[in-house]
């Protein structure tokens, strides 16, 4: 690598920028192990008496393990359902022509345009009449299908050559076998991308769980965190401990799936 002063300056700038991106996370962690943070006007960069008491307090005041499990199970279920429903539909839009298919696909795409906010009141009413307020099923149901997922997987399936499944058809394979044994294995990268997106969206979703969940122990992590802030408005160490705990699983997932996430995002911007 050539040592060019410009390049060195660029390096310094980029690293400084990255520090700005990471610092809030570090600072949240430092705060979480500094009992009584927020009482003094001079922030302590290295805590005087580091302690995990905020974490212990968090466990005591909230059914925290339960809340993490709630988020986790809902995110896993949402992901599994979205993978199943989206891949089946994508197969039809890619491989099974029928009259009016384009129109149906257009309706699917149109639902992507509808903001959740427009749906909030009637969805709430719908869930109420189904008796699903304050139930996990009520949180889960609106997210079991994803038009975005159908779109993403259809794109991937369209790039699989049709020769393969035509050959399988000649060998007597039906659509179920072609779908399961040929197409699905070939679109694995797209499935991985959808997995990450679906999990992330569910793990981070806020407005819908906020509206539908009432029982504190049933809440998901973001909703519980937002409520925590209201309750312990001055106890920043506890609020930051909760934030740290909610970031850690995402961080772990992110480290292993970075490639798919970044590729997935990059891919959505390309024509």
């Amino acid at each position: 690598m050539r040592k060019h002063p410009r390049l060195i300056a660029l390096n310094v700038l980029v690293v400084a920028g990255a520090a700005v991106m990471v610092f809030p996370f570090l600072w949240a962690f430092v705060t979480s192990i500094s009992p009584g943070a927020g009482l003094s006007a001079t922030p302590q960069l290295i805590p005087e008496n580091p302690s995990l008491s905020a974490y212990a307090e968090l466990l005591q005041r909230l059914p925290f393990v339960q809340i993490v499990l709630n988020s986790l199970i809902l995110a896993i279920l949402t992901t599994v359902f979205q993978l199943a429903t989206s891949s089946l539909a994508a197969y039809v839009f890619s491989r099974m022509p029928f009259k009016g298919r384009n129109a149906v696909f257009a309706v699917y795409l149109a639902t992507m345009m509808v903001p959740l906010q427009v749906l909030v009141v009637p969805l709430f009413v719908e869930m109420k009449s189904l008796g699903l307020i304050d139930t996990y099923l009520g949180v889960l149901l609106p997210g079991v299908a994803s038009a975005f997922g159908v779109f993403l997987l259809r794109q991937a399936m369209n790039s699989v050559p049709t020769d393969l499944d035509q050959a399988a058809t000649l060998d007597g394979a039906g659509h179920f076998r072609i779908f399961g044994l040929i197409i699905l294995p070939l679109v694995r990268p797209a499935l991985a991308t959808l997995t990450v997106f679906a999990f992330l969206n569910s793990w981070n979703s806020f407005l819908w769980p906020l509206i539908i969940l009432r029982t504190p122990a049933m809440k998901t992590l973001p909703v519980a965190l937002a409520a925590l802030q209201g309750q312990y408005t001055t106890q920043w160490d506890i609020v930051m401990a909760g934030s740290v705990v909610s970031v850690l699983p995402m961080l772990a997932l992110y480290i292993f799936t970075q490639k798919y996430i970044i590729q997935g995002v990059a891919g959505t911007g390309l024509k």
Partner: protein
Amino acid sequence: MTTVGNSKPGVLRATTTRGGNPAPIRRKPAPRLRYALTVALFLLPSALPLLFFTIVPMVSAFWISLNQWNLVGSMKWVGLDNYARLVTDPGTQGAFLHTVYYIVGYLPLVYVGGLAIALALNARIKGRSMLRGLYFLPVVTSWIVVALVWRWLLNPSTGIVNWLLGLIGIAGPGWWTDPAWSMPAIILASAWKDLGFVMVILLAGLQAIPEELYEAATVDGAGPWRRLFSITLPMLSPSTFFVIVLSLINGFQVFDQVYAMTGGGPNNSSQVVVQQIYDLTFRYGRAGEASALSWLLFLFILIITLIQVRGQKKWVNYA
């Protein structure tokens, strides 16, 4: 002799005849019906949820918006009154203004910042994939955590941002306790979170620009700025278009960070449209007006998106 049946989708039968004797034809029961059933089986698991949890609520939101309703009692038909009232209501006008304020502050910040980082990380820099990962980290974090952490960083009396500003002799503002600074605080946190997302989109666009263009321009004597404005930006226009459309759609729906950072306050200074919808429904029980506002927001986003899609021919260059 084996003939493969016509290539109608799903209709594929082998008819075997030997020595004039018609072989027993295993006819599958009504192949067309079978095909239709297969299509239905594949489509329904996604079509039914989309129908019941998106399309039906969408339509019924419109129905509710034509009524006066507090979520529990009976509905009272009021026609377009809710819409008429919202358009003239100062609270709603304020919410729209604040939402526009958010977008006007957020979009340039996140685009210019994202572009600068994308350009830097497209250069030959050591450890650039790890750096990309770091810039992207906030994108995977939930809005609530981002909002809480930034509320803490921007705490007027004990936050580290004001402390650092104090070190260089600047008296930091009250941020979320000051009506003049609540929106900038939200914009700052949002831009920080989304920078990495914009960076990745633009980086993908940058990587699709052929190197020869730059080489030719350099031979012709174009400096770095000239190359940026004459090659990079025009070639990036599809990615730019995508970022702008998406940011506008998301910007008009801004909520999580507002709810967790300020709740719309202080003194309604950061009240945005979705916070207004939430408050109307769940604080004041005015579901009819909330639904009308939802529909107004939806139409607003739709019109703005359509205008952009129409206008893109003028400046977006799909090479």
